[in-house]
């Protein structure tokens, strides 16, 4: 049982410094030794005018999903924060500005919208910041000062983070910000002296095992760099843009380059071109951009050229909901594009896996000479977790290209049919290893050929090759006692975290429930999945898409219909929802 499981939201209007405060809070609590899972939401429009909410879950153990109940709400704008009050847990703490510049009508203050068990802590953030630093901009930090007092978090953690964050902006800004935080801390120490305060058990201060706070996007970008990436080709699109921005800054130092292409078609073209020429490259996009890439992806399949594509799913279809999460591109990733174009699709379920799978995807692409699609989602890309990133080992960076043997010089057949289906690949310009590569169906030598014989042979070869990737792809992981179960939950992507939390809860309550984490979406480990399904009376597949795209893909492996749990709210799936559904199946 977790000793610490605290969810904190900061809510404000754009311009209030909500997101910045959330970032500082995450770092500070991380320094205090807690695990972090945080996810912000803010207006979609560029330079938007709207509500910002940071949502952070802190605990003494790793967290799988966001919680549905908020224990602490810091309101930087009472009008916006009213939308968050329905999510307050019992006895929640609400920290708000109790000295607005003028009198407000009934209902304007957040105090009018909370249940009587909620503990209100009012502080004059604006006045404190103004008094301390001469400007009201630091009011978000004054609020954090109050938070630190209420929960007994050592202020040094906050001060260090503030110092680090604002050092680059100059002495004056840094000083004003520290003063605002201190003013809030001092005020709260005095004002809340007599009040009963919640107890937060912070872990013993010890050497932190080199875990850092990192978002999914950043994890992807770092993995690519650690894999030796030198070239990134892409086009900005929410939520993948931060990957591009990160690499734009980081690649030149490594002797590489980020090139913004005119569109996604050009981007995937450039990636294929780069890999074709023997150099690792990557692109990252989202649903609409991915759709543009599909023809060239199948070109990669047909010409057996490696590529690494990150598809950061968002609400669809078409432009859809750019700043909302969804898992509705599975079908597009696995099947999208003309023809029988089997390719590798893997889906990380948390930030650490974002790193690992991106790292892995370059080797998989090279060995299996195919586009590899890493399917993430908005929630995963933008959420922050505290993970250990130790960099890539030699083995993980190794070149997995299979080059032709010297013996085939002069008689090199690029697409020779082999047992594994993998044909050794020469890098263009290698003397004695001339070849044709084409998107048309072709002979083993690579010459275009439309005969029924060749097409059947080649299609079979390509599929056999991809099936072979099962050896290198992460197998599904089971979370159960191993015995027979009433309900088995299969989930993928970020939904898996919610599913696991729900399943663990049912297990604690004595129910016979298990979970299966699917990470390789294509090819998938049919045997393992079937074996799991056999042990379960019912199979439940929760996902953030309308019909149940994973259910459509693997549901047939179960003896009967699987139970689908579908949501398209744009929000991550709630563990409670899955938990309730499981209970109905028992």
């Amino acid at each position: 049982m977790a000793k610490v499981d605290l969810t904190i939201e900061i809510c404000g209007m754009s311009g209030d410094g909500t997101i910045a405060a959330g970032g500082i809070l995450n770092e500070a609590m991380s320094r205090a030794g807690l695990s972090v899972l945080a996810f912000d939401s803010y207006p979609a429009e560029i330079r938007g005018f709207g509500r910002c909410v940071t949502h952070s879950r802190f605990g003494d153990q790793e967290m799988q999903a966001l919680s549905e109940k908020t224990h602490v709400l810091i309101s930087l704008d009472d009008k916006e924060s009213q939308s968050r009050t329905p999510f307050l847990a019992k006895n929640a703490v609400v920290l708000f500005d109790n000295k607005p510049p003028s009198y407000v009508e009934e209902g304007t203050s957040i105090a009018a919208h909370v249940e009587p068990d909620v503990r209100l802590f009012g502080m004059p953030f604006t006045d404190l910041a103004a008094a301390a630093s001469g400007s009201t901009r630091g009011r978000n930090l004054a609020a954090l000062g109050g938070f630190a007092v209420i929960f007994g978090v050592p202020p040094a953690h906050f001060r260090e983070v503030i110092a680090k964050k604002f050092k680059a902006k100059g002495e004056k800004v840094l000083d004003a910000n520290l003063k605002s935080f201190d003013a809030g801390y001092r005020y709260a120490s005095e004002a809340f002296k007599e009040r009963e305060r919640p107890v937060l058990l912070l872990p013993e201060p010890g050497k932190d095992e080199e875990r850092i706070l990192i978002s999914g996007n950043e994890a992807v970008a770092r993995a690519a760099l650690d894999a030796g990436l030198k070239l990134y080709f892409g086009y900005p699109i929410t939520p993948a843009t931060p990957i591009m921005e990160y690499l734009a800054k980081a690649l030149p130092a490594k002797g590489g380059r980020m090139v913004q292409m005119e569109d996604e078609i050009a981007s995937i073209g450039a990636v294929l071109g780069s890999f074709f020429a023997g150099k690792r490259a990557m692109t990252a996009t989202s649903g609409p951009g991915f759709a543009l890439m599909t023809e060239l992806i199948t070109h990669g399949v047909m010409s057996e050229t490696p590529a690494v594509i990150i598809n950061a799913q968002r609400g669809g279809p078409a432009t859809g909901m750019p700043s909302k999460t969804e898992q509705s591109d599975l079908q597009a990733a696995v099947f999208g594009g003309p023809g029988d174009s089997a390719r590798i699709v893997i889906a990380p379920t948390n930030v650490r896996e974002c790193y690992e799978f991106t790292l892995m995807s370059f080797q998989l692409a090279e060995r299996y000479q195919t586009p590899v699609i890493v399917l993430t989602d908005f929630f995963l890309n933008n959420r922050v977790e505290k993970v250990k990133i130790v960099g890539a080992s030699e083995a993980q960076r190794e070149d997995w290209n299979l080059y032709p043997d010297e013996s085939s010089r002069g008689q090199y057949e690029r697409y020779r049919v082999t047992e594994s289906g993998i044909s050794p690949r020469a890098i263009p310009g290698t003397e004695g290893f001339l070849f044709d590569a084409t998107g048309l169906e072709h002979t083993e030598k690579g010459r275009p050929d439309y005969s029924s014989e060749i097409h059947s042979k080649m299609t079979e070869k390509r599929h056999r090759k991809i099936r072979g990737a099962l050896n290198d792809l992460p197998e599904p992981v089971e979370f159960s006692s191993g015995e027979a179960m009433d309900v088995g939950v299969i989930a993928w992507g970020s939904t898996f975290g919610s599913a696991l939390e729900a399943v663990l809860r049912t297990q604690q309550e004595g129910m016979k429930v298990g979970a299966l984490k699917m990470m390789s979406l294509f090819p998938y480990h049919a045997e393992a999945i079937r074996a799991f399904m056999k042990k379960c009376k019912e199979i439940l597949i929760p996902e953030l898409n309308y019909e149940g795209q994973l259910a459509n893909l693997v549901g047939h492996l179960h003896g009967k219909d699987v139970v689908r749990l579908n949501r398209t709210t744009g929000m991550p799936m709630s563990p409670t929802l899955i938990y309730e559904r499981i209970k109905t199946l028992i």
Partner: protein
Amino acid sequence: MSEEHFIVIGNGPAGHHAAVTLRLEAPGARITLISKEPHGGYRPHLLPKWISGNIKEEALYVCPVEEYKNMAIKLRSGQKVVALNPGQKELVLDHKEVLRFSGLIISVGGTPRIPEPLLIFKDILFTLKTLEDARVWREEIPRVDSVLMMGGDLTSLAVTKALLGLGKKVYFMVNEEAFWPLRWSLSLFEEMSHRLQQKGVEVLADQRVKGITRKGDCDYEIQIGRQTVRVGMIGAFFGLTPDVRFLAASGLRLDRGILVDEYLYTGFKGVYATGDCAQIYHPALRDYWVSVGHDNAVELGRTAALNLVGNTVKAGAAGKCIFEVQGIKVNTSWWTEF
């Protein structure tokens, strides 16, 4: 839904029952109950019993917090009223939110009174009014063996009982002003001293505090008249002074409390005051008085609510327990508890 918005300030026994009565009498009205303490309503007269450990904390609360929602009463807890304009029918909370009402019942009760000459000692004196105060007593009592009770109001008797039950030595100094609204008299004092002494309490004859010296942690020496007393803790029980300072600019008639007629009416349309903060002229006493005791507060709360919705019920109906002072009957429900 009716346009009526009734506000009750204060969630003590008077305020709680006023709100409940309003809900029964005006089913369609919007009712807001404002309490400056951050929890649901509780019974302050039971605090001494909680201090002595005779009852559990849960028994203090009048009802679970969800009950308020069931009764469609919006309880604003931990929020304080800082200004009132009864003519404009609006009040202001301490975070600058303005609430408008069609009817108002003020039942803010009182805060423990420390007579001006003793104000310089206020940091070392312990008073008892709220749940938070009681928590402090529970933490402090195990650290001391003896307590000086100064004042002699009705709460002090219940606390003395609690202290005796916990095996502490109790000194008692009676101050005639602690009895307001009851008038002090020699016979009253003698009867009280007699009863206290019977229980093993040492009653001090004089009431002039000359000085208090802190000798150490939980160690005080007090000079009263010619006597010197050494104790671990000093309690101040000089009655309650109605908590009406925030109304100074409101235009309400104020003396020690809010002056109201026998219907608890303040003179401003739709505005009533009740409970410990309401000051009413008592013809039998020929003096103003303020209610004492839990049962009276409950009764007065109900009365104010009934009158606010249009009835004409007189306040100060005979309470359950009568106390005689100089041949005058006074209502109080606490006296016989001791």
